[in-house]
């Protein structure tokens, strides 16, 4: 079913099975036929762990999305709400429950909070007079969802805002809980490294939780050698830059949600003979993107410039394979050919899809504006002209380009200059407020609070030191056959991944000075193992590091980490976890202020 989860160094199918079991147990608690009412946001993440068939086996007969007013008719015994603990959703649930036709057959109501029950929400239900109507009110701690063989996400879109703006640690608590679950399944992680305020908190929580569970000694042989906790605000730069890997660009341009992407349908129209292309589909084409698709696994982490040649080579191989049919003479040969046909057809379908996606992306990357934007980004990241008003940004504002694009660039400039000169900052602010509306003053304040857009303190720019010490800007980039992680941004090496790389070799002691400039403490903790569980590594055996990005991670960073995992003499393989898979746009969007 989800075989791709077990290909990695750590079999994440174990985790998937564990959460599936928990789901089954809950469903069986509500005996009899049932209908599930879904908080729409949850269907995506749930889709990664269960299909409808699983629910059906447990007597789920109908499914609806959560909407106001009355519930659709359904002849079932149980109505179960699957929701995030959010107040506005409680209002809708209450409305559903109160509109229930009392003359009809009595139905039992239940709520499953994902990932956490909330006393606040239950209070709201009580205020609305419906709390007593629910038989089961439980939580389903879907803290970390397996996305791929080496990738886990909490898909909590508000985590960054809560941690760095509100100072609310709830999502950190969930992260710690998720890590405890992982340790329960994969053994205690002997070493914990971290950088940043939130990282420190999570490590503290883990240590405390472990102390509380001392009753049951974990007897599983540890799979992970160490854990690296990284605050997103240690590296605010990376997500702001445009990702240039294949997967990163798909995400930048179309947005990948729960491993699905929606694409304009024109290029995917089935081209049947005599069709004449009359009935072009209007609905977006939706594709799932993960390593279950062989071709995608091969190209997703490449720089987009290296994707074309792979696609063309694949095409030749497939063509040749199909040509084989002419050589099949004997019954045996024909049989052999036919048996391979399904695989070949799948490969052909996959190739056709990715050729089409590459075309779509290429239309964007070859546009003049994309090029101009990239030029400015690269200037900033390499330290050129970061201290004055930038012409291109000015132009973007004058032409009223999307506000988020403008904010991304302005923030990038600010981060690459350790803050902007007051005069420059005031100028940008003024232009933005006059062009996009004064109410965005609130958003600008949020960005400042998050450290993304701020005045330069004391006129000191630390970025050049950081850039040089960590070698964030590389001149010799080989996009086709990369030798360094900087290929993912065609020159810029993501700071976060550089920190991980330097930690594994030669260790952070070599960069103490830079670590002190970057925000938050850096630390190391050990979780002692009973002697029986201590690992004796074979010579040449790689360590496995779980790297947890608190506040979100981009696909380009993931690509860079996979690149390091695959290095022959790298010595470390990475499994990546995060609060949210994100890009600069979704990040800034989450920080924008909207009506309550």
């Amino acid at each position, binding site marked *: 079913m989800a075989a791709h989860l077990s290909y990695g160094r750590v079999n994440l199918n174990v985790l998937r099975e564990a959460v599936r079991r928990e789901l089954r147990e809950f469903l069986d608690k509500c005996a009899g036929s049932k209908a599930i009412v879904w908080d729409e946001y949850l269907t995506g993440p749930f889709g990664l762990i269960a299909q409808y068939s699983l629910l059906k086996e447990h007597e789920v007969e109908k499914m609806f999305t959560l909407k106001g007013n009355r519930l659709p008719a359904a002849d079932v015994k149980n109505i179960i709400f699957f929701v995030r603990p959010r107040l506005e959703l409680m209002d809708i649930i209450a409305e559903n429950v109160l509109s229930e036709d009392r003359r009809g057959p009595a139905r039992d109501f239940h709520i499953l909070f994902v990932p956490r029950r909330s*006393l606040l929400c239950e209070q709201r239900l009580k205020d609305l007079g419906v709390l007593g109507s629910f038989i089961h009110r439980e939580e389903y701690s879907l803290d970390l969802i397996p996305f791929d063989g080496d990738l886990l996400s909490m898909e909590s879109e508000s985590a960054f805002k809560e941690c760095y703006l509100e100072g609310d640690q709830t999502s950190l608590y969930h992260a710690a809980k998720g890590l405890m679950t992982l340790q329960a399944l994969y053994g205690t992680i002997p070493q914990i490294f971290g950088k940043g305020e939130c990282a420190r908190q999570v490590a503290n929580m883990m240590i405390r939780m472990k102390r509380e569970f001392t009753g049951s000694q974990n007897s599983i042989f540890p799979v992970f050698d160490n854990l690296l906790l990284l605050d997103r605000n240690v590296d605010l730069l990376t997500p702001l830059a445009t990702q240039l890997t294949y997967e990163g660009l798909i995400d930048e341009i179309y947005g990948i949600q729960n491993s699905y992407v929606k694409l304009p349908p024109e290029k995917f129209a089935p081209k049947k003979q005599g069709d004449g292309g009359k009935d072009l589909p209007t609905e977006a084409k*939706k594709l799932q993107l993960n390593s279950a698709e062989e071709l995608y696994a091969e190209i997703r982490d490449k720089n987009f410039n290296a994707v074309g040649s792979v696609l063309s080579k694949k095409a030749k191989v497939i063509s040749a394979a199909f040509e084989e049919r002419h050589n099949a003479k004997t019954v045996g040969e024909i049989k052999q050919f036919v048996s391979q046909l399904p695989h070949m057809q799948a490969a052909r379908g996959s190739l056709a899809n990715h050729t089409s996606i590459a075309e779509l992306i290429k239309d964007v990357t070859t546009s003049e504006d994309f090029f101009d934007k990239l030029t400015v980004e690269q200037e900033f990241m390499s330290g050129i002209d970061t201290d004055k008003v930038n012409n291109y940004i000015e132009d973007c504002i004058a032409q009223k380009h999307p506000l988020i694009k403008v904010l991304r660039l302005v923030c990038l400039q600010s981060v690459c200059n350790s803050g902007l000169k007051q005069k420059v900052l005031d100028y940008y602010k003024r232009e933005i407020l006059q062009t996009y509306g004064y109410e965005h003053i609130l958003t600008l304040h949020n960005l400042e609070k998050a450290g993304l857009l701020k005045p330069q303190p004391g006129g000191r720019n630390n970025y050049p030191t950081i850039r040089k010490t960590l070698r964030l800007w590389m001149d010799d980039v080989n996009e086709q056959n990369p030798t360094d992680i900087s290929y993912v941004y065609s020159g810029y090496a993501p700071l976060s991944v550089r920190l991980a790389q330097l930690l594994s070799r030669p260790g952070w002691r070599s960069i103490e000075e830079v670590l002190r400039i970057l925000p938050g403490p850096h630390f190391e903790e050990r979780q002692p193992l009973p002697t029986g569980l201590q690992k004796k590594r074979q010579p040449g055996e790689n360590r496995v590091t779980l790297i947890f990005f608190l506040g979100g991670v981009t696909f380009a960073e993931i690509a860079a980490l996979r690149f390091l995992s695959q290095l022959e003499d790298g010595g470390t393989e990475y499994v990546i976890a995060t609060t949210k898979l994100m890009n600069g746009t979704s990040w800034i969007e989450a920080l924008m202020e909207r009506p309550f």
Partner: protein
Amino acid sequence: PNPGPTLFFQSGRPLASGVRSGLGLPMNRTKGDEEEYWNSSKFKAFTFDDEDDELSQLKESKRAVNSLRDFVDDDDDDDLERVSWSGEPVGSISWSIRETAGNSGSTHEGREQLKSRNSFSSYAQLPKPTSTYSLSSFFRGRTRPGSFQSLSDALSDTPAKTYAPELGRPKGEYRDYSNDWSPSDTVRRLRKGKVCSLERFRSLQDKLQLLEEAVSMHDGNVITAVLIFLKRTLCKEILFRELEVRQVALRHLIHFLKEIGDQKLLLDLFRFLDRTEELALSHYREHLNIQDPEKRKEFLKTCIGLPFSAEDSAHIQDHYTLLERQIIIEANDRHLELAGQTEIFRKHPRKASILNMPLVTTLFYSCFYHYTEAEGTFSSPINLKKTFKIPDKQYVLTALAARAKLRAWHDVDALFTTKNWLGYTKKRAPIGFHRVVEILHKNSAPVQILQEYVNLVEDVDTKLNLATKFKCHDVVIDTCRDLKDRQQLLAYRSKVDKGSAEEEKIDALLSSPQIRWKN
């Protein structure tokens, strides 16, 4: 026949060559101690170095893929991947919601009648959580008889996750636990979702200990529950005072107040903490929820003078003034439009109200509908420019766009004409003529007009580029002649129509013996 591949390669612009050379990046700049670093650096963006090769390979791949279709298309590849067209894998959850909901038929039945009884708005009016809250009152019995029995057995098996059964029992049965729970036991129980009454914590000391326990567990859910309890049982001043020295709890309370929309207490808290700027911003934020323009304006008025930073104060003042203006302009223009006597509104009916639009949009509107008005009126562009201190650049840009849209070329001309004291006229554009040309082109200005402004572009390369891009043949030809660039002129010859006046002009130049070509 498949039109696909050509699209892919239409604009095969080599990215890297542009980044490296085309845009004139300051490659060799020196910057003090970075000199060495920079002298050796060059930009690498997207390199399509071996572009031709790679692109032709790709074309080939596309062709190959498509040629295979005939052979394998007997069964649709969508079947193969088992996805519906919209891409939901058949059997996925979101796919199934559509499928199973579709069968339920009577979704809308009875909705209308219900609306009056149970409309959503009636819930919206329900009071938000107030101080009558008590955690223990959560757990009182359920309101629906019948639902209890069927599952009561299962419930008592799992008391850890349900509240109701335990509280349903007579008091004596659990008195032992409840009175002995220490703050840390209580917090631990809360964390596991178990029942516990917080009421027994009466003294301030107990309450604070409870809070500290909750905070040390880091569980936001429990921290919030305790804060709700404290909020209800402590007077404001004490609550604030105690939280001031407990920053984590304080942040949770602020977040919680924002979430439930208890604006009043939030403002009181900021006032108490003397966090004046947050107080101001938080108050200002409320305007987002006010739809009625008059009320919004009145509200914004209350924001003026709040302790914003100096910069922000000016912006808030402007926000108020702008809305005030917009209300006047809107009333006036709606009236004019309805009366149907004013030509500009008849020819170009307004697409939307100007209320709540940004300043620059308002300026555009005013340049579009009220360009010639005297400075004294609220709707005149000059008046807006003065009131809001709009910089020259911004003003010219906006006016140009508005007048070009109306094809009022005279106005455009006037925007850039300056007279010196001798009475000579001179063309000057604070935004640079290349921008003027772009904007004019976007508004489909005729070639004669474009040509005039392309000619004013100072940088020769830019001029040539723009002229070529917008087919201002004369400018291209003249510039090539001035540059004595025979090769470029020759190349351009293929771009003009056969037998046209331009072609003749080029030919005449090419054969002219008077020009000393440089190539």
